[in-house]
């Protein structure tokens, strides 16, 4: 926090721009009636977060944020929305439960208030930190991050690969239709199960 007193006008402009992108996009996600509009507002938020990453010298993470989130995750969301055909508008005006909205807003206000209160009370910096600074020289962010991931965090990185394999296998098992049993099957009431409604892969 040594640098906190030396704000410059460009820094403030970049921060305000990123913050506006984030907040407007997030509000759009939960207000939009059409899921496609929600997904596009999500892109706005993700780009805003990437802007703030760059402002905080996390260059590599900003690039990954744009590539993975805006490039892959949101495209997958849009693909599923179009695939399922749920891009009709939801009526956001009728409340399914009485008092759900006011209660939710109250809870969230309490949540944010307590987070901010905790943050303002806490003594943040503690312990000896560490090993590698985020920037030990010009344009060293990627090198430092790579060094940290492949030395200090090597075990977590390897576990990550197992997680990705599990996710891929799980998605395939969930999404496929069974090709093994082609004989007509019946459910517990004796009605034949149509090919469009069963997904045996998920039962196992």
């Amino acid at each position, binding site marked *: 926090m040594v640098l906190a007193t030396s704000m410059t006008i460009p820094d403030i402009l970049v921060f305000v721009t990123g913050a506006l992108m984030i907040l407007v996009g997030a509000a759009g*996600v939960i207000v939009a009636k059409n899921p496609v509009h929600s997904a596009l507002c999500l892109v706005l938020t993700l780009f805003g977060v990437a802007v703030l990453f760059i402002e905080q010298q996390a260059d590599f993470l900003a690039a990954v944020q744009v590539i993975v989130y805006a490039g892959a995750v949101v495209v997958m969301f849009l693909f599923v929305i179009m695939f399922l055909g749920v891009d009709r508008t939801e009526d956001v005006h009728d409340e399914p439960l009485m008092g759900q909205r006011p209660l939710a807003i109250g809870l969230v206000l309490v949540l944010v208030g307590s987070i901010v209160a905790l943050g303002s009370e806490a003594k943040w910096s503690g312990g000896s930190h560490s090993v590698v600074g985020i920037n030990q020289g010009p344009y060293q962010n990627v090198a430092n991050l790579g060094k940290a991931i492949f030395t200090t965090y090597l075990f977590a990185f390897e576990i990550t690969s197992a997680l990705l394999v599990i996710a891929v296998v799980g998605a395939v098992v969930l999404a496929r239709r069974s090709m093994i049993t082609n004989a007509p099957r019946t459910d517990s009431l004796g009605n034949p199960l149509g090919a469009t409604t069963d997904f045996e892969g998920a039962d196992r």
Partner: protein
Amino acid sequence: MSIPSSWYLILAALLFGIGALGVLIRRNVLIMFMCIELMLNAATLTFVTFSRTLNDIGGQADVFFILVVAAAEVVVGLGIVVAIFRRRSTADADEISSMEG
């Protein structure tokens, strides 16, 4: 680089709150998923802020792993949504109620 980190932390708290609000009030499963992504992004923003404040690359490494977990979560979650939609033809959380007592 010289914005006080408290600004970023308050912004991340607001983003997390908006995401939580979306999960609580929306009924479309896909939009609830997007709100979970918003909350994850609030967490990553906090990590990067502390990484800069403490001058420690570990926070950015954590964000890297959060990104991987988020991608895996979206893959499995959307697979579940597709499977439910095939069986019930709805993406509305209130109508997926067959497990209630």
